[in-house]
């Protein structure tokens, strides 16, 4: 952000509004010295405002690829045109999944993801595959990166600036070739994530059970073994906002729902804080 602002340029609207997260993230930085949660409701409300509400304001009724396909195909017979239309909307987004932790900032947690392995279950063999050649790739990669870095490093001052302006910045990717199909994040296929199961350890319940077992005369080790367990907190297809799959379009649909529905938002927050009932 600093480099952009130094030039007097402004962030795009989406990230300008991200300023709403400032306080919460500063608090998060301070928190790195300890695990006690501070201002996390402000943070998650900021996420809703900066991301989910922005998406909701841009969305018509839905980002779901299948649903848009159906609606569009009713009106237009040309399938290729319809594909272009929603492709342009959904595939500009990528989903970042931020996980709950084991450290009891909230209740300890982790997630098991399920993904599509259709076609690989019974007859996939790598024994007939050509040699991987990764060693050669990494030998070349090292040389290539050094070459990229040395390219202009001997230049200085104005020469360097002029040269940089002329040359391609290799840390900016080329646009995805138009003939490549969308990957597993956008269209159901091999390796598309289909569902997740969020596990958590309810520390209050575990402590109650542990003390109960100790009182009953169990040894501390036996009591711990009986009391300690992770349980399913929720799954991605659970009510009140079940996701039928985990495509980017489904996440965008969910973002719209979370922006518009207070009951869903309340449940989402409860899950974000791992069912601890946390409030600022």
């Amino acid at each position, binding site marked *: 952000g600093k480099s952009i602002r130094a030039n007097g340029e402004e962030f795009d609207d989406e990230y300008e509004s991200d300023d709403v997260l400032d306080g919460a993230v500063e608090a998060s930085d301070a928190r790195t010295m300890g695990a006690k949660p501070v201002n996390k409701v402000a943070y998650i409300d900021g996420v809703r405002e900066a991301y989910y509400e922005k998406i909701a304001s841009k969305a018509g009724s839905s980002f779901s690829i299948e649903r848009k396909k159906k609606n569009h195909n009713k009106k237009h017979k040309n399938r290729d045109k319809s594909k272009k239309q929603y492709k342009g909307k959904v595939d500009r987004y990528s989903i970042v999944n931020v996980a709950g932790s084991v450290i009891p900032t909230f209740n300890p*947690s982790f997630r098991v993801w399920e993904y599509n392995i259709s076609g690989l279950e019974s007859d996939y063999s790598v024994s007939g595959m050509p040699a991987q050649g990764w060693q050669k790739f990494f030998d070349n990669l090292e040389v290539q990166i050094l070459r990229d870095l040395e390219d202009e490093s001997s230049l200085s001052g104005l020469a360097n600036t002029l040269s940089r302006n002329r040359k391609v910045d290799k840390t*900016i990717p080329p646009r995805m070739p138009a003939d490549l199909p969308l990957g*597993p994040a956008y269209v159901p296929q091999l390796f598309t994530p289909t569902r997740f199961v969020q596990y958590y350890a309810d520390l209050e319940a575990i402590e109650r059970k542990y003390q109960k077992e100790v009182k009953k005369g169990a040894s501390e080790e036996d009591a711990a073994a009986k009391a300690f367990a992770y349980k399913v907190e929720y799954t991605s297809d659970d009510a009140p906002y079940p996701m039928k799959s985990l495509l980017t379009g489904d996440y965008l649909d969910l973002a719209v729902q979370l922006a518009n529905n207070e009951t869903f938002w309340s449940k989402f927050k409860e899950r974000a804080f791992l069912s601890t009932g946390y409030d600022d």
Partner: protein
Amino acid sequence: RLADGKTKSLKGRFLHITDIHPDPFYKSGTSAEEVCHRGKPKDASDTATRFGVAMNGCDSSMDLMNYTLDWVEKNLRDKIDFVVWTGDNIRHDNDRRFPRTESQIFDLNAKVASKFEDMFRNKDSINPRDFDVTVIPSLGNNDVFPHNLFSLGPTLQTRELNSMWSNFIPQEQQRSFDRGTSYFVEVIPGKLAVLSIETLYLYKANPLVDTCDSKKEPGYQLLLWLGYVLEELRSRNMKVWLSGHVPPLPKNYDGNCFHKFTLWTNEYRDIIIGGLYGHMNIDHFIPLDAKKSWKAVEKSS
């Protein structure tokens, strides 16, 4: 059927676990106000229990970590294909009486890595790289010393990491790991990879990171590496998960690092399945908009 003649059955599931933060100084019955290291608790809510109290500010007791990993081993190990493990394997630096040292950070990280190896390796094999369940670790901002500060290698720290994760990092990538501490693992050979990205090179709180626009910046060099690797994976028709500790958010990543990273994740949307991160300790998702990042990058250049 694997290249060595062995077979492995896919389950179609994987585990993402993060931010364990085990604390060897954690002591049951002490005060949470004294970060569960000492002191008489004021009341029940201030008391450090065996497995910890949510939201009281203490790190994980060793029991919490050990019982958690035991539970995973008993209940999930045989049901998953791989484990994405996104770092922070050491207590916070929150007790002046016990300041963290570099050797403590290395030691505990090595112990946790060894635990993961024991849990998921093929116990019938003498090959230490033979895992029933592949593990892909990445580095947290608390796993480095001083806190948050991590430079390009080779350094003592990158070599220590290489040593403690040597069985997780593919052999042909160990030299490149020494420099950039990012790597990838083919969790399904020839088909599916998981990238472990050194997000500390993009992280605002790392004093050595300024922008991703200069060739001397670690983030610039990381993005070069990322670009070549993604292109190679695309050419091999492989799909890939991205993983790392610090999530790519405008407030976490410095300068243009956020926008450039967002562009890579989006322009390789034919192969990238998604991103898995830790650090924030809150279960949520963020949709990143590449169109906005293109505008920001174009404006800044």
